[in-house]
């Protein structure tokens, strides 16, 4: 996959100019013009989509447009006079000139609404950065699985992958983290649903200092690597949703607790563990689907990393006896039970 870079800025500028010139006209007019820009089709589509996203505007007009349509549209106005009469009556009722009323009719529909430049002409670099996210998303969306090499905070990607139901295996290398990510059904073949989950990781790549992705799409492979123009990574709420709730409950229980949400992953030999929460000297990891072997391996890794841990396990996902160091929950994680488990002697510590 070829990301957009400095040398693409001239044609991106041309695309931005087309949209800026079409201010006030429907988006479909600009889209027709944009097709003439000489650029790779997928890159142009990503730029067009980014421009639409950056300029926004739909929500602002949605309510008014609906109201106007409900009032104006009805039985067909088959003559010019019938048409003007209806528009005038409705305009009077709303206290608007008929012309403005007509322009409001479609002001919320994606291709029909008028282009607006609320903050002036968009910047090419910003457009390119957002378009790159889309290009990476498209590549990941078609993927079977991904092998990632991440420098800096790999925990963001690891947690985000796990939160989206992906299987992620992390290995610590001397200067980076190697991450193998695949969807459960994608173990059997390429799937759209887990391709989409992989694509959701794209905006978060900017959180890493450096990255390299080897994307396996089944019938072909492609690679993506930084440096790449990307917008600042957003906070991934999905990745820390439950942990954030638990941290809040623990904080309410004991104000003096030293809590850290999404701490740095811990090295356990070559493997890596990724706790969701640090509570003073101990760690908490929330576990989704599990097997006894999976929990045992996880506890061993924490042990090897020299960390005390409580694995908080959804009991609905299994009916086995939980090992020491694991705390089961059904429906709701009880903060008091987690705190008690952290403080109990069974909380797995480096010396057993």
């Amino acid at each position, binding site marked *: 996959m070829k990301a957009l870079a400095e040398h693409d800025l001239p044609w991106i500028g041309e695309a931005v100019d087309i949209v800026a010139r079409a201010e006030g006209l429907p988006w479909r007019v600009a889209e027709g013009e944009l097709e003439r820009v000489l650029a790779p*089709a997928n890159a142009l589509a990503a730029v067009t989509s980014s421009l639409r996203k950056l300029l926004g505007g739909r929500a602002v007009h949605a309510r008014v447009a609906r109201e106007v349509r409900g009032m104006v549209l*009805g039985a067909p106005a088959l003559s010019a006079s019938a048409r003007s009469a209806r528009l005038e009556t409705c305009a009077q009722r709303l206290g608007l000139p008929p012309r403005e009323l007509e322009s409001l009719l479609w002001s919320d529909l994606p*291709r029909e609404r008028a282009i607006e430049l609320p903050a002036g002409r968009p910047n090419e670099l910003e457009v390119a950065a957002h378009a790159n996210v889309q290009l990476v998303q498209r590549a990941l969306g078609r993927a079977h699985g991904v092998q990632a090499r991440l420098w800096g905070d790999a925990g963001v990607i690891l947690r985000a992958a796990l939160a989206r139901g992906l299987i992620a295996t992390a290995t610590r290398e001397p200067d980076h983290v190697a991450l193998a990510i695949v969807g459960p059904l994608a173990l*059997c073949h390429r*799937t759209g649903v887990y391709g989409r989950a992989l694509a959701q990781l794209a905006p978060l790549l900017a959180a890493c200092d450096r990255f390299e992705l080897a994307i396996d799409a089944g019938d072909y492979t492609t690679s993506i690597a930084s440096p790449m123009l990307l917008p600042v990574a957003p906070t991934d709420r999905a990745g820390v949703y439950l942990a954030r709730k638990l941290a809040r409950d623990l904080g309410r229980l004991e104000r003096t607790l030293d809590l850290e949400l999404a701490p740095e992953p811990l090295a356990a030999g070559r493997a890596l563990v990724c706790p969701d929460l640090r509570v003073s000297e101990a760690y908490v990891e929330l576990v989704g689907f599990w097997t006894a072997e*999976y929990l045992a391996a996880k506890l061993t890794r924490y042990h090897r990393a020299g960390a005390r841990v409580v694995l908080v396990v959804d009991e609905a996902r299994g009916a086995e006896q939980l090992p020491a160091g694991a705390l089961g929950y059904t429906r709701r994680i009880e903060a008091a039970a987690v705190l008690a488990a952290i403080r109990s002697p069974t909380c797995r510590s480096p010396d057993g």
Partner: protein
Amino acid sequence: MRMRFDRGTVVFDQVGDGEDPAILVGATRDAELAAWRVPADRLADVRVRLSAADVRASDEIRTEPLDGAWAMPNLRWYQQLAIDAWRRAGDRGVIALPTGAGKTLVALGAIAAAGVAALVIVPTRVLLDQWARALALAWPGAIGRLGDGDHQVEAITVATYASALVWAPRIGDRFGLVVVDEAHHVGAWCPGEVFEMVVAAKRLGLTATPPGSGGALERHVGDVVYALGVADLVGDALAEFEVATIPIELADDERKVYRAARGTFAAAFARFQRDQPGAAWREFARASRRTVDGRAALAAWRASRAVLAYPAAKRVALRELLARHAGERVLVFTADNATAYAIARELLVMPITCDIGRAERAAMLDRFRAGDANVLVSAQVLDEGLDVPEADIAIIVGGTASTRRHVQRIGRVLRPRPGKRAKVYELATRATTEAAQVVRRRRGLEPMAVSP
């Protein structure tokens, strides 16, 4: 060995000594979990294999129970025959009935007969709402809805294709039956993986236009077990109808633009076909985007279609037809959304497109039923499934050669009423590609009775 459902797969762990995982044909090792996985739809097959091999397995997959009694309306003769055929086929397969013949009732009958929790998958938000309301009339419990902002799961749940794809990894173990509406979309709009991620062995597909055999629909749902076409039910369960083709002449300037555009496109397309015989349209489009000439050819193709979509003579013809049928409920079908909006803007009638939200669409359909807004214009949303019982007239301003689409569109006005005779007008531009399309798409109206 233990079996559990997880994220669209069945997971096998605790494989005992002497239990050979090879019995799970096609299973993939999940090293992280130290377990084996197969797609969820293989569950029934795996259960049979394990049982045949006398392997004792702890099976923790339980579909939701269905407690309650259905309040079923009377079924028509062919609806009952269709359900009987489906049951004989082992509660799997596709039932093909023309639009307006009551496929929803067939599904209700099939779900009631199967007696298991059911997930109904539909293409659009409009149909989600429509199905949920129909099911609520017959089923005493709550109806789950997934899509259009709802995410409630019940023993009987309706989901849009898009939501089913997102939710299947989470709820794929809860249903014993999957019903897919407009089943000809399976494998394309409705991805096959939705069906792979649900354990339900019972499957029912509903369509007016079944695709040929050997495709994704057959693989995931089954063969066509019962089929009737429009011609089989006209005068019985469907209203009598007549189709009138209205020839349209392009104005001189339109003709000039059309010919120039078509010429540019045809020359480029012919060159491409010479270089790559048998290549698909998609490949032509992809190759064309890479060159200046190719882009010009694509732009010319779009320009030629734009001329045909709504030329001046179609404008005149449409006004005349609407005046002739003033006060009657009319559905206007266009080739694309832009034309639907153009007509809506010009005549101040309501467009029903994918861009129009649920509440607004429902309000407008209510006004259409009440007769206050008696004309609706749409490119695609009205093509399939939407229940508009009061429509009598269809005006096809633009379309494609697709027989499937044509049958669906005509079906919109075939819901019977005593004394009703529906009228379908096709506006076809002379000496253009549209004239040939009209001839081709009519083949879809021929009889197709299949009843084993």
